């Protein structure tokens, strides 16, 4: 075996980097191994990004890693343009919306603030190890107690309201509070993007609250565009690792996690090289980590069954269109850098496009969001409800069918766009699965649903980051609290490892 490390991190996605940075800053000698030739995982590099418009890292993590949050959150907030079936798009920044009537503006501001408060109360759990079922530690109980207290501090009415809606669907909540339309459509996209649930599916309020819990200098529930783009965030994180003495190797794929005496002992690379370390953190999805890298021979049958049963059917395709000359909006004006365009005219439209996906078909009218990179002249589209298990498979025909239905919707808002396209590419959930170690091509490595959250994330018996083989930890989106660019799973996993090591 070559070299000596205290810890190996498999995968240089943002969670892997956060985990590595936390360990490195505690004096651990860490090695990050990345199969791709660049770091950043789904944040990607100039050639392609799965997640072109991230949410902000948890502020506590950014502070601990001494990151410049102002820079990372960008000079101005990301504005959402929500396109209806006709007319100019609504413009949304946090709790402010323009382009609709005064009553809706008012109701939306109230709703947004309320969801923010409720999300913050639940958000207490984000940086806590989820409590063990039936055997919660004192610290975990304290975390729960803190959340219960926060919920009480919301006041009786708001607490009851939270307990009422928490397992409910975005459809009912938004219809009750603001009515259906582009605004509800944009919010319902927040609630459903990346998952296999439509706005009518119970559980989508929870995913909405999950997104609302994200914090940035511009407010809660917002995406951010770092100064210098997503690369700046990736660089900041990898610098954290290297400046603390950590090592990052790219272009090296891990083939197997080595086990000795029922303890993680290091990894074997596809090249055959073996690297020893008593601590292994995996940023790959739980299924990949456990069933492929570790191997079923180390696991109990029931555990494997639960792992296999984990819902992780990816629904998102990413499309890039290189544009010669970006046309103006039909309603006037140009698209600007750092804007987010949402094409989900109503919740009804989102639900309708989910309908097809349930049966393994592509929606006729997909709902999607898009950002335009004015320097690279690239329109990045994130299309929802394009199922991993597409009937007939993800053939070139299927991909071009998806591209043209997306383009048709874009063309309505941006007349002349289709003729300005110079190149395009489609990354299906299957491509994302093979490219990023994410089973099912799922963004979050596993559906964000009550039955797969907290002490059940990724599944019963594998929560709390520690895997049955001692010294092996899950640090990716499959672990609590889940996906998006929060950094929390990586942070929590590293802390769990440190705690076990007596640090």
């Amino acid at each position: 075996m070559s070299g000596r490390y205290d810890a190996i991190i498999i995968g240089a996605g943002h969670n892997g980097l956060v985990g590595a940075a936390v360990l490195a800053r505690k004096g651990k000698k860490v090695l990050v191994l990345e199969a791709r030739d660049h770091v950043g995982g789904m944040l990607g590099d100039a050639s392609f990004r799965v997640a072109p418009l991230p949410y902000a890292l948890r502020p506590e993590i950014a502070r601990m890693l001494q990151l410049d949050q102002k820079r990372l959150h960008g000079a101005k907030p990301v504005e959402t343009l929500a396109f209806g079936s006709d007319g100019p798009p609504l413009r949304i920044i946090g709790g402010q919306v323009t382009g609709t009537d005064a009553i809706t503006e008012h109701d939306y501001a109230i709703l947004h603030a309320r969801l923010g408060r409720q999300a913050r109360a639940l958000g207490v759990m984000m940086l806590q190890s989820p409590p063990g079922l039936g055997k919660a530690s004192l610290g975990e109980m304290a975390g729960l107690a803190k959340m219960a207290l926060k919920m009480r501090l919301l006041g009786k009415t708001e607490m009851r309201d939270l307990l009422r809606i928490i397992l409910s669907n975005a459809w009912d909540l938004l219809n009750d509070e603001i009515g259906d339309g582009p605004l509800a459509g944009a919010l319902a996209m927040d609630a459903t993007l990346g998952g296999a649930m439509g706005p009518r599916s119970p559980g989508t309020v929870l995913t909405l609250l999950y997104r609302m819990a994200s914090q940035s200098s511009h407010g809660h529930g917002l995406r951010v565009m770092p100064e210098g783009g997503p690369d700046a965030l990736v660089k900041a994180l990898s610098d954290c690792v290297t400046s603390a003495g950590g090592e990052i190797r790219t272009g090296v794929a891990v083939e197997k996690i080595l086990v000795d005496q029922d303890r993680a002992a290091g990894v074997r690379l596809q090249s055959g090289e073996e690297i020893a370390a008593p601590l292994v953190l995996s940023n790959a999805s739980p299924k990949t980590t456990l069933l492929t890298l570790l191997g079923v021979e180390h696991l109990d049958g029931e555990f494997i069954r639960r792992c296999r049963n984990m819902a992780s059917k990816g629904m998102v395709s990413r499309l890039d269109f290189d544009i010669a000359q970006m046309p103006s909006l039909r309603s006037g004006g140009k698209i600007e850098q750092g804007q987010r365009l949402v094409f989900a005219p109503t919740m009804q439209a989102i639900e309708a496009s989910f309908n097809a996906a349930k049966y393994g078909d592509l929606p006729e009218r997909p709902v999607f969001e898009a950002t335009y990179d004015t320097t690279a002249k690239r329109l990045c589209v994130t299309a929802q409800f394009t199922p991993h298990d597409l009937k007939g498979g993800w053939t070139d025909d299927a991909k071009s069918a998806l591209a043209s239905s997306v383009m048709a919707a874009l063309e309505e808002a941006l007349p002349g766009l289709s003729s300005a396209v110079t190149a395009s590419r489609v990354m299906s959930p299957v491509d994302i699965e093979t490219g990023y170690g994410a089973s099912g091509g799922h963004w979050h490595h596993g559906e964000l649903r009550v039955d797969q959250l907290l002490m059940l994330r990724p599944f019963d018996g594998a929560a709390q980051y520690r895997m049955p083989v001692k010294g092996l930890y899950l640090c990716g989106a499959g672990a609590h609290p889940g996906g998006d660019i929060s950094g929390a799973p990586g942070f929590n996993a590293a802390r769990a490892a440190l705690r076990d090591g007596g640090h």
Partner: protein
Amino acid sequence: MKYDAIIVGAGHNGLTAACFMARAGLKTLIVEKEDHVGGAAVSLSLTPGWTYSNCSYVCSLLRPEIIRALELPKHGLQVIPYEGGAVFDSKGGYFAYMSDHDALRRELIRHSPRDADGYERYSRAVMRQCRFIKPLLLRTAPDPASLKPRDISELLYILKRFHNLGAREMAETVRFWTMSIAEYLDQYFETPMIKAYIAGSGIIGTGLGPYSPGTAYVLLHHYMGEVDGAIGAWGFARGGMGSITQAMARSFEASGGEIRTGSGLDRFIVRDGKVRGVVLDNGDELYAETVVSGMDVRRTFIDHTDEGELPQEFVKGVKRYRFRGSSGKLNIALDGMPTFTGAPKDASFLRGDLHFLDDMAEIERAYDDWKDGKWSASPYVDFLIPTQIDPTMAPPGKHYATIFVQYAPYELAQGEWDNANREAFAETVISKIERHSPDFRKLIVHKEIRTPKDIEDQVGLTEGNIFQGELTFDQLLFNRPVPGYAQYRSPIKGLYMCGSSTHPGGGVMGAPGANAAREVLSDLGHRIDMGMSA
């Protein structure tokens, strides 16, 4: 006239509450708008010789504690378990559910040995959930936002029961309460027909499809019943479901209660925030310090109460409360026993619930139609012929078919529920059945069509929702019907709710009525044993 208590609505919950109150010595009156008691548990004769269970049609959930406490068997109730059930697919195959465990195992093995094993695991998992939930049915849900000792101790009771399940089962319980029935069944079964057979129990009466999270719990709502201790078994009430409410009415009258049918409620009389009685639609004024409404929460407070008497938050909550009728029904008098192309002759499983399905996706597509404001083009039907067992509902040799249909919307996206659409709806169902039973159509002597609109108009269930409101988590336990008002009391002193829109919800269970009576009696200072300790 002055009474100790007036109950509005002689449905099974109103009757249950009334019985307990009369037994406690209260001078109790029930008022009912129809000419007969029963609400959604009725047996009516619409064509000579036949009796229909017009609305609810099978019996399992009615709590045995209530049957005993109200001496319903003495007053004429007989519940007979039915055997079997089946799903027929479009290729001529069937999966038969057999009550005999060994026969069921053989049938499962015929489809898949793996599923035979899976069934054992599945039924134990569901049984464990039934064990957990059963004691909660006849208890008042605690208010988690309250600091009253009673709420805290009740919350602790539930937490303790939950904790006693052990770590694995706690996880299973969270999953069970939140998962979709489809994904839940995928864990245990591979045969589409078997999954489709079971999945029906997860969507009956709801505005959700089998792929919607939260439907596994609805399954429990159909499994937690029992017939003589056989958990999950279903039976027929001899003489139709009306015999349940008839027995309750007799039990009530035997305890000195009084029933007035034929005139419904106009409004509650409220003075100084306290209820004083009711005014009927015939103008009669009746007085009582305690009034219990068996109607759903919207009817009670929006249609029959002056909004000024109620706090705004409460009114908002009531208006938001979701009904969403999703079910229709056909009651059909048959000239003889229909035959089924898919079934072997004299198959015993025909004496149970029959369905015509290929897989769960077919149910989900039926749900998609409903979302679009259409009745399902290929609906899920729960089809039973009780007269194979019950000799009282049709002349000898003739039969009665009860056909429950999921999904049918309350409001059609196009057009109204006029006669043409009602007939077209019935035709969709009949032609689906006819594909599996070619002689079915020509055996029809008479039919009753009940769309959600009809159910609302004739039975008083708002939007035709059979549970008096959706069984989703935002409307269960301490959320049912309105957070903060989930303990049968309303903002108006003396006015209580006892319908299915209160915990634990719908189904001919009687638990809401019994729970409400317990709360009423405890407010009046009665401490009586209702024979219902868990």
